[in-house]
Structure formats: C-alpha cells, structure tokens
C-alpha cells in the first residue's frame, strides 16, 4: 500500500495550538503522517536541525524537507494536496481577510490567552481579560460577515480561519476555568461563536486533535510551576 503522499512527518506537541493547526489540515486532506512529539522542556536534534532559525514547533517534514510556521505549513498543505477539500478560500479578497484575522489572532489576541493566567497583578489580569473579550466581540462580528450564514468561517466546511482560531479553543476553555469561571465565550455576547465552537470541536478532522479541557488544565499546572520563580512570597 504505497502512499502517493510521500513521507509526511510532523514535529510537535499535543498541547500546542500552533501544532494543532497542521494536524487538522492534514486530517482535512486525509493525509497520514507520523507525529513526532517533542519532550516537554527539551528540544530534539531533529527539531534543531529542521528549524535552526526559530527552533520552534510545529515543523512539517515532507519527504525530508522542512516547512516551518503554523500558518505557512497549513497553506503548504492546502497547495500540495490540492485535490482534497480546500482550506484557503478561492477568492483572493476572501483569502486576504482570512489571513488578516489569523494574523490578528496570533499577534494580538492569543498572547492575552497566555498572559491572563500568568498576570502578576489583579489589574494586569483584568486588562488581559478585557482585551480577550474585545477581541472575541470583533471575531463575532467577523464571523457574521465571513460565514454568510453557513456554519464555519470557511463556509460549509472548516477552512483556514476556522483552523487558525479553533486551534485555540482548548486553551481558551482551560483559561476560563483557571480564571475562576470567567466567561470569555459568552452565549449572550458571542452567541454565534459559541455555536461555531461546538460545531468546530465536533468536526471529524478536529475532534481527536483538540485536547480535552481537563488534560490542558493538568498540563497548565506543570507549565505554571515551571514558569513561576522558585520562592513564593
């Protein structure tokens, strides 16, 4: 049973939303791959060799050739396996819009998901939470415009922006718990996104990739222990 897809490996880690993106994309295209998981706290020789510039996951290795940066990998997957369902929209303007929101999520929004639980002061935490809520309000509006009445940002099927944003849902849910039940995704304020989140999480390409909130909460304890200074005040 020779694969026409070539040799496909993904260097990553189960908890990283950036790694979830190419995993979902490969699932959308029904491409089998070997998932090489990095050990938490150390970087493998293969990772350092494959991504010498940033030394970060994910890295896709296709027939031994590395592709780095999650959004770039997803676009690569879409272009190589072009006979499978499309991930990027076909219209250039729609592509520009999808890329814009993915960049917004990466540069402005997700850093607050990580910052909120680690905030040193109550003030800083509240500021991060406000930013997250504002961002979600913007995304609720964007969803309305982009989905045009369909289930996903990508239309009938999940697409680039669904994957870019949806990969963050696991941590978003975990952070809501860590912050003591703060409602970031809110049925009253962001009803469409709540529905979208449910549908996205249940999608066949997604459900085995998006970790359960419980698992992420356990992992976050290890993460936070590693990041906090040794002495407590």
């Amino acid at each position: 049973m020779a694969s026409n897809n070539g040799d496909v490996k993904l260097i990553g880690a189960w908890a990283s939303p950036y790694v979830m993106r190419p995993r979902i994309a490969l699932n959308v295209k029904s491409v089998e791959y070997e998932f090489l998981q990095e050990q938490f706290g150390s970087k493998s020789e293969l990772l350092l060799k494959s991504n010498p510039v940033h030394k970060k996951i994910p890295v896709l290795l296709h027939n031994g050739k590395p592709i780095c940066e999650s959004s770039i990998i997803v676009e690569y997957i879409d272009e190589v396996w072009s006979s499978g369902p499309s991930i990027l929209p076909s219209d250039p303007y729609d592509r520009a819009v999808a890329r814009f929101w993915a960049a917004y999520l990466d540069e402005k929004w997700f850093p607050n998901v990580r910052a909120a639980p680690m905030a040193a002061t109550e003030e800083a935490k509240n500021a991060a939470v406000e930013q997250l809520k504002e961002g979600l309000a913007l995304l609720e509006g964007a969803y309305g415009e982009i989905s045009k009445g369909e289930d996903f940002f990508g239309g009938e099927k999940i697409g680039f922006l669904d994957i870019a944003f949806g990969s963050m849902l696991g941590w978003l849910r975990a952070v809501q718990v860590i912050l003591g039940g703060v409602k970031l995704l809110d049925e009253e304020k962001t009803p469409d996104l709540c529905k979208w989140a449910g549908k996205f999480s249940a999608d066949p390409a997604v459900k085995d990739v998006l970790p359960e909130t419980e698992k992420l909460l356990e992992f976050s304890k290890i993460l936070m222990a590693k990041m906090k200074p040794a002495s407590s005040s």
Partner: protein
Amino acid sequence: MANELILLDTWVSPFGMRVRIALREKGIKFEYKEEDLTNKSDLLLKMNPIHKKIPVLIHNGKPVRESGIIVQYVDEVWHDKAPLLPSEPYPRAQARFWADFVDKKIYDTGRKIWTTKGDEQKSATEEFIGYLKTLEAELGDKPYFGGEKLGYVDVTMIPFYSWFHAYEVSGNFSIESNCPKLMAWAKRCMQHESVSKTLPDPKKVYEFILQLKKRLGIE
C-alpha cells in the same frame, strides 16, 4: 471594469514601501494618499478600525490590510504580471518563511537601535547584524532571494535599505563592512525602477528618526 486602487501610506514606512514596489513591478496604477499618523484620516480609521495602521490598499472600495497580506493579494490578483511568489508549493513556503522572518526580526530590532543607548543599543546592534547575516546566508550566491528575479522576500526586505543609514549612524556601526553581500544585493535591487522610485533618500529617513525621537521624548 474599473480597477480603483487607493493606497493609504506614509513615505517613510518600510511596510508601505513593500506595497508600492509590488504595484510598480507589476505596472499597476494606484492613487497614493499620504497619511499623517499624528492625525489619522477618517478614511484610514474606517478602513482599518482595528489596527488604525498603514499601509491599507483599498481595491474597488474594499480594504486589504497588513503589508505582507497586501503584497500576496496583489500578486494573486495580478498574477500574470511579474509574479513575486514562486509557483511551486515548497519554494512558496520558503519565501513566506523568510518574509515572516524579516517581519518578526528586522523592524523591531532596528527600532531598538535608534531608541536606546549604551549596552542595550550595543546588544540590539549585534542582534540586528546577526539577523542580516542569517539573511545573507539564505541569499547565498543567488542574485535575489527570489532567484534570478525580484521576488516576495526581496520586496519585503529591500525597503529597510533606506533605513540602513539611520541605523548605522544611531548605532555607530557599518552594515557594509559586516554584510557586504547583502549590500551588493540591495544595490542590485535599486537598479529596478520600482525600487529606486519608491525608496526615500536615506538622509531624509535619518532626519525623520531624529524628529520622531524628539516627539517621543527620547534623547
């Protein structure tokens, strides 16, 4: 079908320059609107309410934002004229990677050079040279990052050439002596009208930085 293109931009922005170079390479006509970033126009605020930043390319009334995204959009819409991204997926991914590298590293580190002093400035300068050397290694023996012709990475990086003088004077170092191959590449790019017409006089960029520092209250 009328193709109305308006570019909201500022003369000194390396991000705006990328878009201008791409449009000029492809021979596409556009209307240029100089923004005063201390007094942003209603049009800019309407077209980019989230970031309120330039460049914004307005195509038949619809805004495209973020310089890298705009250049890719222009390349896709006018794909038959002077293509900037390679046609094959692997080289495309590589081009996007290196453009992303430029985006993540060059502007912010360069900014540290002219906004700081002493040890902080020295380490920013060293970091900056390190990144330029990484780019030199990627360029290798090719005339352009895009191979035989100007490509996406060239267009993304060349605007910073107009800022080199400002970095050098601020940080008291020479980019030419550290990265001669990169300087040769830059001069090669400047032979293209799309580039030479777009890049401002480096001395004017340095004056701009001096004025900006005054305004920001940086010594």
